């Protein structure tokens, strides 16, 4: 159980995290979603006691991180896979971590086995690929068999096989009843990994719901209609009060199912050349929600970029 209460962090003039409150429950994978620079890493570092909050507090199982005795037995964290001395072996790295929390040395071999690094245990960590480094980082997080796990962008830069492995691993950990809190800037990835979502933008809470609810609420469903008698159809649809948008030789209808549109067309004797439901993409939804809160804008403002993506589909 992770709890943030009015968590804030200010760097000079910028407010990186702004009065953030949420709780992460056990037994589920909770995604922590937001564009780059939204304050995800800063929030995680505050939860872990690495950064001091400017305001508010973060608790793990009701206690601040600094008050945990042998914290690795309660909380496992992977903030950055590169937090390893390159000349130390994988086993050497895990051995000092284990020793610091008085965990038995054999636990090191267990977690190495668990993440599939037994074969390279004595190789220097500096020579590891990103995927191997991530596995080593996960091994470190699992050392103390903790009930709470935090991962910061664990799939960043991984190949599909590595991504799948990590995704399955998270589910397994959550199924075992653990609290799993994982950040990402990719909604498409989170839609597959997380059951709950905490969405932030510019350090502020945007949404806190189940992933399904979030995706359903965020993606707008529309129907594209093409017809040689478009004017007639437009008139008929207009009388029902749905919202319409002209797009070249077709109409985009939102707020009405395709079946109802088809029946309306038939009732009015209109020939249809196309009647296709359009599902909004997750990326679009995400950009619509966080559009105003992206810290570093490109020249395109976010809605315009969303339209461009939509047009490209």
């Amino acid at each position, binding site marked *: 159980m992770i709890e943030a209460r009015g968590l804030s962090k200010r760097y000079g003039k910028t407010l990186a995290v702004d009065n953030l409150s949420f709780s992460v429950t056990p037994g589920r994978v909770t995604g922590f979603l937001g564009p780059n620079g939204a304050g995800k890493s800063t929030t995680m570092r505050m939860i872990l006691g690495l950064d001091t909050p400017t305001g508010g507090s973060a608790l793990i199982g009701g206690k601040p991180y600094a008050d945990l005795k042998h914290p690795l037995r309660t909380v496992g964290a992977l903030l950055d896979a*590169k937090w390893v001395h390159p000349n130390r072996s994988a086993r050497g790295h895990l051995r000092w971590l284990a020793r610091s929390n008085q965990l038995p040395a054999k636990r090191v071999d267990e977690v190495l086995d668990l993440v599939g690094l037994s074969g390279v245990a004595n190789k220097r960590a500096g020579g590891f690929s990103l995927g191997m480094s991530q596995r080593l980082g996960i091994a470190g997080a699992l050392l103390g068999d903790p009930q709470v796990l935090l991962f910061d962008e664990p799939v960043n830069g991984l190949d599909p096989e590595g991504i799948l492995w990590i995704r399955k691993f998270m589910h397994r950990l959550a199924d075992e009843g653990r609290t799993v809190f994982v950040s990402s800037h990719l909604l498409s990835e989170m839609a597959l990994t997380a059951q709950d979502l905490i969405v932030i933008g510019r350090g502020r809470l945007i949404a806190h719901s189940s992933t399904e609810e979030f995706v359903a609420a965020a993606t707008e469903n529309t129907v594209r209609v093409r017809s040689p008698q478009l004017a007639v159809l437009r008139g008929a649809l207009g009388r029902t009060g749905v919202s319409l948008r002209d797009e070249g030789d077709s109409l985009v209808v939102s707020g009405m199912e395709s079946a109802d549109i088809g029946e309306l067309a038939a009732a009015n004797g209109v020939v249809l050349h196309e009647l296709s439901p359009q599902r909004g993409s997750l990326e679009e939804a995400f950009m619509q929600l966080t559009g105003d809160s992206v810290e570093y804008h490109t020249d395109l403002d976010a809605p315009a970029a969303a339209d461009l993506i939509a047009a490209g589909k």
Partner: protein
Amino acid sequence: MTLLAVERLKLFTTRSPWWSMLAALVVTIGFAALMAGTSDDTAPMDLAATQFGYNFGVVVVMVMAALAVTTEYRFSTIRATFLAVPNRTAALLAKTAVVATLGALIGAVAAFGSWGIATLITPEADLALDSPYAWRAVAGVALVYFFSAVIAVAVGTFIRHSAGAISALLIYSQLVESLVQLIPNVGDDIYKWLPFNVANNFVTGDPDPSARPVEFGPPPSTAELSPWWSLAYFAGFALVLLILSIVSANKRDA
């Protein structure tokens, strides 16, 4: 005890302590051999001359000690450390203890090694360890290395970057202190109280062996404290820096 074991594991699973040890021993013992080999009637070998390279060993030990902290910042293993041990004061004190003890060990081996090789090369010279001065001149090197390492750990913790920390340490201990003497009127009086000059006084002072020309031994110190008060002063300086650096590590984001 656990934390000391952790820091020992961390230190010795990297290469830099081994290289530093080797470098420190080669430099100090090498200089002792050089001094003994080139001694003659005009410049006979004495105890001070066996420790000619001791100041260079200080440099190597300080670099090793600073790197022990700054590489942790560079590779962020300090963050992993603070995750495992949220009590930063305890973690940093353990690191300081381990690194400084290694420094003292290097100092002891370097000093007795230098003395030993000089005894072998010039058996006729009077190198007997038979006075408080003689013991300080040789065994005392270990204590100076110990506190030099504490200073370097403190500076490393404060500056966090290897290049910055090492430059600060070397420029201060090797240049700034001696250059202070060039300040008109007050320079010499200030110099008497600068920590590395005072530390020298512990090893080389009372009786002042500077009857020999300075190039035949560590430059004599101008400090006026008694030898053991000199060490206490140097230790106090190291301790103040350590406390300041730990306070800063607790305040700053890791």
